[in-house]
Each structure stands twice: as C-alpha cells, then as structure tokens.
C-alpha cells in the first residue's frame, strides 16, 4: 500500500468517524446522567430526513441543520418524557423511537417528494462544503505532518470540526464544571443529588436534550455532508455502532474519539478494498463491509476489557428513604 492510499483511507476514516463520534457523544451525555439511549439511531435518522427535506426545499444547508436538530430534539423530548418524567422503561422508549423514525421518514418522504422515500438530491448551498484549514497548502511540503494536515485533517465539512471540538468540550464540562459534576453524580447515585437538594429530573432532562442536539447534528451531517440527500434507513445501524463505541470507550470522551475512529477506519478500509487479497486468500466484499458490525458484536459481547457503566444507568429514579 502506498502513502497516497494510506492518506486517502485516513481521510475517509475521519469523514466516516464524524457521525459516529457525534452520536457516541450524544449517548455519553445521556448515559452519564443515567438514561440509556438506544434511540440514537432513530434520532439520527429523523434528523437526516428533516435536514435533507428542509435543505432541499429551502436550498439552505443551515436551515436543514436547524430542522435536523429540531426533529431529533422532538424525539428526545418523547424519550425524556417517557423515561424520566413518567419513569418508564428506557430501553422500550428507545426502541419505540427507532421504529417511529424508521416508519415516519419513509412515509413522509414518499408523501412529500414521491421518490420512494428518498429526498431530492442536494447541491450547492444545500450541502455542506469542505473547508480548507489555514496553512494547509503551505504545510503540504513538510514531511509526515504536512500531508497528514493537508490531506487528512483539512478539507472536511464544518460539522466534522464541530464533532472533533466537542470531544475536549464534553470532557471539560463533565469534569470541570458544576453542571458536569451533578450530571455525573445523577448517573451514579441520583439519591445523592436529590438529598443535596438538586432536581434529578431537571438534570436528566438536560442531558437527554443535549443528546438530542448532538444526534440532530449527526443526522444532518449524514444527509447533507456525507451524502447528498436522504435515503431510506441511511443511518444503517450507526446509532448502535455508536453505542458499542461508547461501551468500548468506557463512557469517556477522549476514548470515544479513539473508538469511533477505529470504526470509521474499518468502514474506510472496506470502502477502499471491496475485496482484500491476503496472499492466496481473497476476503470477500461481504466480510469487508460487515467488519464494523462484527466489531460491534465483539465489543457488545464483552470480549474487550471490562466496561464499567454508570451505576444508576437504566433505572428511573424513585425517591425512597
């Protein structure tokens, strides 16, 4: 493999990592507050649809992004209402959101655009354009760093940089601020927060809404950055892969970056080498395409390290003395 191919794969991995990273951070916010979020997939999907639909109609990608965030937030509110306010089962609420998004996007897409569930193709201002980072051309000649900066890091859409910036931002808020301390506490032992006179319900709502915003960005990026329009089920299980990455990352922001990059890398390799020849054996394309999913199963089955989830995760908080 030559250097150009390697750079190409890394570049593509970064691009493919972004939606996973956004969704993974969404899950991190929600689950660190003790609310399991299996509905990442559904929220991304509805955001992708809303973003593509609005961008197609208005011709503005930013209007599309806002619509994506709005749609995802609406589903996040459903989840919060069911799982926090009414103390319902968090998994069931998440599954319901996934079904709802899966059906709703196709139904609305067909009724509005009549393209079999797709939205019209997006062009120009209706899509996110790549950004060339300052100094990319000037640094290109520098060995190692130059090509990495110019080829891999530069030339992505703004949402990729947003996703990357959210990693340190998440870490800072969680570990350096009052809000973060309370949020982590509510995911570990909500009674400690309650007896300190702080509202468990309000904190968890805030966390779930943050997750909604991040899923909205992730979905909008799928439809208006990575692709040029919405197609049926275009999230393709990325919400679940993000959950696996979250477990792999042990619910920590920097590790989430590493874990989602690994998944992005595998997707990129599969895209670049539809079938891989390893000496006498040819790995068929089906296996290559399935790689991220196979890794997901391995991680979810607990083969990699010991995961320590937030202790109060999945349990509605009921006051007791």
């Amino acid at each position, binding site marked *: 493999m030559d250097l150009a191919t390697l750079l190409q794969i890394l570049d593509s991995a970064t691009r493919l990592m972004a939606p996973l990273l956004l969704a993974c951070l969404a899950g991190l916010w929600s689950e660190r507050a003790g609310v399991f979020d299996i509905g990442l997939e559904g929220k991304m999907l509805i955001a992708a649809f809303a973003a593509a639909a609005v961008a197609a109609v208005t011709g503005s990608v930013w209007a599309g992004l806002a619509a994506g965030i709005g749609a995802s937030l609406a589903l996040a509110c459903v989840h919060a209402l069911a799982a926090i306010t009414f103390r319902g089962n968090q998994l069931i609420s998440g599954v319901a959101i996934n079904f709802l998004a899966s059906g709703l996007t196709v139904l609305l897409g067909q009724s509005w655009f009549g393209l079999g569930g797709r939205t019209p193709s997006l062009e120009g201002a209706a899509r996110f354009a790549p950004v060339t980072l300052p100094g990319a051309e000037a640094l290109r000649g520098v060995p190692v760093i130059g090509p990495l900066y110019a080829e891999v890091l530069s030339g992505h859409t703004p949402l990729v940089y947003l996703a990357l910036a959210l990693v340190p931002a998440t870490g800072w808020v969680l570990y*350096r*601020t*009052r*809000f*973060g*301390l*309370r949020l*982590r*506490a509510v995911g*570990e*032992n909500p*009674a*400690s*927060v*309650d*007896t*300190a*006179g*702080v509202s468990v319900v309000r904190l968890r709502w805030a966390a779930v809404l943050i997750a909604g915003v991040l899923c909205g960005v992730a979905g909008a990026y799928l439809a208006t950055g990575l692709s040029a329009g919405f197609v049926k089920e275009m999230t393709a299980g990325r919400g679940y892969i993000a959950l696996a990455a979250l477990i792999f990352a042990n619910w920590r922001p920097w590790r989430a970056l590493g874990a989602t990059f690994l998944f992005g890398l595998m997707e990129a390799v599969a895209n670049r080498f539809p079938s891989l020849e390893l000496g006498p054996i040819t790995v068929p394309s089906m296996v290559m395409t399935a790689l991220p999913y196979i890794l997901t199963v391995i991680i979810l089955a607990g083969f990699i390290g010991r995961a320590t989830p937030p*202790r109060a995760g999945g349990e509605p908080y009921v*006051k007791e*003395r």
Partner: protein
Amino acid sequence: MGLTAATGDAARPATAAPPAIELRGISKAFGPVQANRDIALAVRRGTIHGIVGENGAGKSTLMSILYGFYRPDAGQILIDGREVAIRDSQAAIRAGIGMVFQHFKLVPNFTVLENVILGAEDGALLAPSLGRARRELRQLAADYQLEVDPDAVVEDLSVGHQQRVEILKALYRRADILILDEPTGVLTPPEADHLFRILRGLRDQGATVILITHKLREIMQITDAVSVMRRGEMVATVPTADTTPEALAELMVGRKVLLRVDKAPAAPGAPVMELAGLRMVDADGVERLRGIDLTVRAGEILGIAGVSGNGQSQLLQILGGYPEPGAQVTGRATLKGAALPLAGADARQRRRVGIGNIPEDRQAEGLVMDFAAWENMVFGHHRDPEYQAGAMMDNDAIRQRTARLMQRFDVRPPLSDLAARNFSGGNQQKIVCAREIEEGPALLLVGQPTRGVDIGAIEFIHRRLVEMRDAGAAILLVSVELDEILALSDRIAVMFDGRIMGERLPGATTAGELGLMMAGVGEGRAR
C-alpha cells in the same frame, strides 16, 4: 415512671429559648397506612435527642418529613420558634438541617471532596469550590475529629469513614441540626465510640443532634433526652437520666419484653459439622477466607461475631452451596462424619444432606419478593413427594402447610396469598424461619436473623432458635449485632479479615474484648 406524655399542645414556656426543632400535629399517611399520626416533638438546642421505636413505628418517615423528602398531610414545623415550610431538601438545608441516612447518599466513584461540594458548589466552575472545601475539611477535621483523606475515592473508604463524609457534607452546608438514622448499624464498636465522640463534640459546640436508633444501649450512653414512637405515634419524651432500657423497651412495644434470652446451659453432643483449612479466593483473586477451622456440635449455637465484610457472608454462602461465581474454594468439611464437598455442590445438595439456611439477605436470597407467602414457603422443598400431585405441584397441600406454619410462627397478617414484599421485615423473616426450621435440619445456618426486625419478632425468632438447639440441632449463627451474639451463643468465634481470631465463651468475655478482636486486635496479632 417519671415519663411525661407528649401531647399535641405540649406546654412551652414562653420565656425560655425556643426549641431548635418543634413539630406540631404532624400526620402522614401512605395509602391506608398511617405512618405518622399527630406527632408532637420538641428538641432543645445543644442536646443529643434520641428517637427509638420498632421497625415501622414511623421514625424514619418523621425524619424524612423534617428533611423535606416527604410532605406531611398536616402539621407544622418550627425551627428556633419560627414556622418554616420544608418543601424539599433544599429548604431543609437552608433551615440548617443535615441528615445522615442509614444508606449513605454518596457517589461511590467520586472523591471525598467532590461528594462534599455536590449540590453546594460556589459557582459554575469546580476548581474554586474544591479549594474552599479542602480548607474547610481540614478545619472541621481538627475541630471534631473528623479526619478523612479529601482526595480518597469514597468506595475505597471504610464504612466508618464514609459516614464521616456524610457528616462533613452536612457541616459543610452549615447544618446546626444533624439527624442520624441508625448510624451505628454498620460500625465496629471502636468506630461507634469514635462517632459518639464526634457527636458529643458537635453538641458541645452548640449543635443539635437527633439520633434514630433501635439500640437502647446507645440511647442510654449518649443521649440527653429520648422520645419513643410506637405505631406512628409519639408515646413519650423523657430525659435519658430518668429512664431505663427496660422502661423504654416496654414503651416501644407496649408490653414487657425479654431483652435477654432465657435459655438453659447447652448440652453439646457429637460434632455435626467440622471445617478444616477452608480457604476461598474470589474471582478477582482476593483471598476472602484464609483458613477457617470450626466445629459445630449438636445442641449448641456457635456464634460468629465480626464486622460485616470479613468473610462471614462467603462462609455462609459456601456452606449453603452457592459460593459467589468464580470463587475457588479449598479445604475439608464433614457433616455428621461424611465428607461435605466444598466445590461443585449446590444448594439442593446441601438441603438433601440436612443443612437448613436462613440467609443474611432475606429479600435477595431468602424470598422471591413478588411471590406469595405460600410459594415462598415451599422453595427448596418443592421437589419433596408430599407436594407433588402427579406431574403437577400439589398447591393445596402447600397452602395448607403454609397456613399451619404461619399460625405456628405468628406471621401477621396470616394470609398465605399475600406477596412477600407486603409483609413487614419481621414477618418476612418469620416466613423464612418457618420454612427452614420446620424441616428439622441437622445443621442450621443463620445469617443476621434479626436485621431490620422489630423487637417482638426478634424475641420470637431467638426463642425458636434456642428451642431448636435444645432439640439437638447444631446452629451456626452469624451476626454483626454483638448483643445478639452474646445473648444467643453457647460459644463465640470472632472473624476478622477471613480468619478466626479466636473463640470465647459468652460468660467469660466482654463486649469490649470481642470488639477488639473484631477490629483485628487480639490472639491473631502474632506479628
């Protein structure tokens, strides 16, 4: 008897300083259950005030109302003579009330500092709050013997230190009224003594302490005044100096109770179970049992004293046939002379060879909480021929037996269709005891038989255990309640850190000596 009955309109001298806390006519019902009925209470500033009562007497409900956890249906709360509305815990904290719950409200993987500032941060950023808390903690440690490493992670601390963190939390919030709910239940005697020194120090600085407990010895030892609750009502408030444990116990249950267990000297027979060199290494590679040698004879109660977490649970689980997953057990054991396999056995095998088991955690190990009493009553014996009707279970036979046992063990209410969780703690325990004792095992394992059980039921369960002993059974009793060990045992072995520190006879030892052994000081200290 020198008791002043507290009534709804207790006379308050207008001239004297108002009480730190005054409750008037507090009532609270949960559905049909009246947890608190027209409660009146006045606690003088700068005193330690005890509240005693059986389980379910309404003590914890009352304190939860005071801390804003529940809203009372009726009544007033006055702090320093001024009525305050305590709608939530925030309001209670503002009124200067701090609470140390029986089950600590700490975040296990946070540091001490983080736990202390949680909810009482100075601003949006943590760093300044952490700095101030560090300085305050140093001062509080010096003032009140509340030393604890501010950077330690809470789950790594001993229970005693975790409790100090709870007290520090309250003091950091400037609480001058401190409520402690059953604070000594999990402490070693030296730790409890230290806690009492802390509480006296706080009182001497002008703080007001409310101590909820069911241990009358502690009430006598540390409180200035004591209030007794019974079935949701406040039945008396009295200066501690003017009362006796017996008088308080009588007020609690409304009749005379035996604080000591009446029993004849034991007549031990042949060894029923012998353990030699029992070791257990858990799944994390930690050695939990480090060579246990024990003999339990027919017709005797061997009591195992010790602070919880020193291997007693592991010992009971191995003997009961359900060691924790991944545990490696070695050593030799015999039951009635026949080898007892330590590994690879299960609870069914244990029952078959004649080992009964009243487990430590009745709600997790002893009962299925959502199942009816009659279903719970047959667990472990559900394969016995008398409960089979062809391929089906003979539910009528099980129900009839349950009805008989409920009557014999005075289970209230005697409804065999009621789910286990709807019985009180004491009655749940009676169901477990009935099931295990009535099978007539040769060896009965008993773990914490009276934890969270009211005095009436304690007395009943103790009497049954002694009767069983007199009938020739061997009983292995594990309890963290030293009083219980001293009252019931014919021989006492003290466990510390997976070892037996030594054996004592109840007549020839003192709580003090056992307390030292429980803390790892004593025979085992050869180094």
